[in-house]
């Protein structure tokens, strides 16, 4: 990041407190994901059945669950897994989608048509059902949830990268690179990709939240991460069963955590878009 970009970023953040707050929130989240297990007041896994279903109190800030586990501690510890799921799913589809999409967008022709067909097939799928089917088929382990989420995200990244590269494929600097002795592949990888990555980074941060929600949805229908691992989606899904009996804290706090996280990433994505959008640089 050059100093000019840095200055620009600072300017954007100053004019845009929402983005600044979102960035701070995302930073805190990442921090919690790293140090979470060492700062929580209770063991997030250890049960304490006599103290089950306690409402929030000074001791249990967010109450306790069915097994008497401290909801607050579980929330904090879950940050790591949730962020990991979201980040790895998005990274996977991002990496694959960017390269494939960029190649398609640059070369056009047969590869583009074939990949386009494949993307059409994927897009024509009801995505959530596809994710469900894949998790059901592969087994509901964390890595499979990640893979399923990545695959259903893939078409968007491919299309996005394809479109972004496509508008640049005839740019002067691309032809100049060819004239400077670069092969097509090297033009795509060393010239076009670095140029479309920032725009895609916006997509990434918007998608991070979506990936977390997707995992939560899978948990709700029983295809999520297995107990007793704390994970927001499954906590919300479990807590949802207690809404009717007024045990609100079981759904409210994980829901809030989920909400704040997704909110952070979404607002950050919006902000990133502003930072990276050259038209904003008046």
């Amino acid at each position, binding site marked *: 990041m050059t100093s000019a970009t840095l200055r620009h970023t600072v300017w954007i953040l100053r004019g845009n407190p929402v983005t600044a707050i979102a960035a701070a929130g995302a930073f805190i989240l990442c921090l919690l994901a790293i140090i979470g297990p060492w700062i929580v007041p209770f063991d997030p*896994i*250890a*049960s304490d*059945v006599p103290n*089950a279903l306690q409402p929030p109190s000074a001791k249990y800030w967010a109450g306790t669950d*069915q*097994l*008497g586990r401290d909801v607050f501690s579980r929330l904090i510890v879950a940050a790591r897994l949730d962020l990991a799921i979201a980040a790895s799913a998005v990274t996977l589809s991002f990496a694959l989608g960017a390269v494939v999409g960029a190649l398609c967008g640059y070369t056009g022709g047969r590869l583009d048509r074939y990949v386009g067909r494949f993307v059409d097939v994927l897009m024509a799928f009801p995505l959530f059902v596809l994710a469900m089917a894949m998790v*059901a088929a592969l*087994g*509901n382990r964390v890595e499979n949830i990640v893979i399923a989420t990545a695959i259903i995200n893939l078409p968007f990244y491919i299309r996005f990268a394809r479109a972004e590269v496509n508008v640049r494929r005839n740019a002067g600097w691309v032809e100049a690179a060819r004239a400077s002795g670069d092969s097509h592949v090297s033009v795509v990888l060393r010239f076009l990709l670095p140029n479309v990555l920032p725009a895609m980074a916006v997509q990434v941060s918007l998608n991070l939240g979506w990936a977390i929600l997707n995992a939560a949805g899978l948990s709700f*229908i*029983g*295809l999520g991460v*297995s*107990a*007793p691992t704390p994970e927001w989606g499954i906590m919300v899904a*479990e807590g*949802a*069963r*207690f*809404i*009717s*009996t*007024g*045990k609100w804290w079981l759904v409210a706090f994980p829901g809030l955590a989920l909400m704040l996280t997704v909110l952070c990433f979404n607002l950050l994505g919006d902000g990133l878009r502003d930072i990276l959008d050259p038209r904003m640089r008046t």
Partner: protein
Amino acid sequence: MTIVRTACLAVALLASTALPALTQTRAETLRHVTGAAINTLDPNIPGSTREAFGLSLLTYDRLLSFGKKQLDGKWVFDLDNFKPELAESYTVSPDGLKITFKLRQDAKFHDGTPVTADDVKWSLDRAVTANVLGKGQLLTGSLTSADQFKVVDAHTFEVTLPKPDKLALANLAVVYPVIFNSKLAKSKATAEDPWALAWLKENTAGSGAYIIESFKPGETTILRRNPDWNRGSAEKPASFKRIITQTIPEAATRANLVEKGDADIVIDLQATDAADLEKKGKLKVISTPQYNSITFVSFNNQTPPFDKLEVRKAIAYALPYDDMFKAALFGRGAPLYGANWTEGKAPTGAVFPIPQPLKTDLVEAKKLLTAAGFPEGFSTTFSFNVGQAGTAEPMAALLKESLAKIGIKVEIQKLPDAQMSTLINEKKVPFFTEGIVAWLPSMDYFYRNFYIGPIRWNYSSLDDAKITEWAQAARFEPDMAKYAALGKDLNTRHFELMPQIPLWQPSQDAVMASSIDGYVYQFHRQIDFRDLSRK
């Protein structure tokens, strides 16, 4: 700006439509909500759901039905006591090999045709001959061939048995041997489908207390009372004019509905909702331990390390029973642990399951595990299916935590229902929780169906010569004292071998409007709406 204004108008319009629906006077209608779905009208079709079985009890009659008895103050079905349905009376010959039924003269099918012995013959022939579910069930009562059924005259019917079988009559009272309108059914039969399976799947040809008014699989079934039906106890039609069964997948919503009075009865609530509603006291909550069921933690006894008795026992002593019972079921059920047996012998043999003398004892568990050659413990997986996650998930978490204390590392596997049943059928799950239910909960029936042979329901893959021998002997043992003695040996042996760890019998929480009367816990864990009335 027009758009904003239009949007405001639209929102206002939408909001105004969300007014409270008018409460209708519907005392004569019973609205039942359930999480599952009815999928066929003929309970014999392979793949029929429990709700389909429940429905068939209303649309069809059988020769007999179970009587009722009180168990701890709750009405439950009685395996040994029958009341006539289409049969007016029945006699069993002294050698127990011939049962003669006298049919009611006044019974008519829904289309007005009188019910005759020919219809009974055709229906029972179908149940033991066609590719239907009844076949497998009826053989547990020695009913296997059409030759055993004989029409004596229009209203007399005879069943012959190869051996005196205690469960023969009971088998005629379950859901499969329903009596079809044979004339109607035969008219719909084809050469490929002589038993009219396809037609009966979507149509009824019965004489039951209710007639299908509308049937939307997976959504709603509406039943209209059959005014001519008089097989109930009071010689009059069923009490409710209409019965609506609706599928509401979300359990919390079902609880809301019944609490708000929009639904009249529901039997598949989450334990937490049932407990909550009971505490509020507005509704009638009848909580009956399912005395014909067991929820257990099972091992595959053929798979190491669970082929070692000490390992199984070690785990049995390591489970946190009380916590599991409280966390998973909120204490709603009958525990099958914590009994006191003298000298390690089962106190009774006439019934199964009975509580076993198990308690949490980590020291003992560790000792047993060391004896088994696993002083450092081992790693394994513990599986349950998604459908049971509500209770199994907290249970599994506690189990994992507790077993970790004796060095056993457990990875929890939550499997989609179909996958779990497939794996169990292939005997590929080493360590898991499941539940079993016997429609005919006699002691030998349990042992024969769940602990013998390479069949799917033998969850523990137990293969013990003594249990096999004693269970087969008990089946045809006419002397109840000897039967009880065999049962005592079986129960004791079962505990000693520890093929599974029985945990509890969960309660069926029937939650209903306080005006509803006459609820009886039934063998198939569905409601027999013919019993119900509104005060």
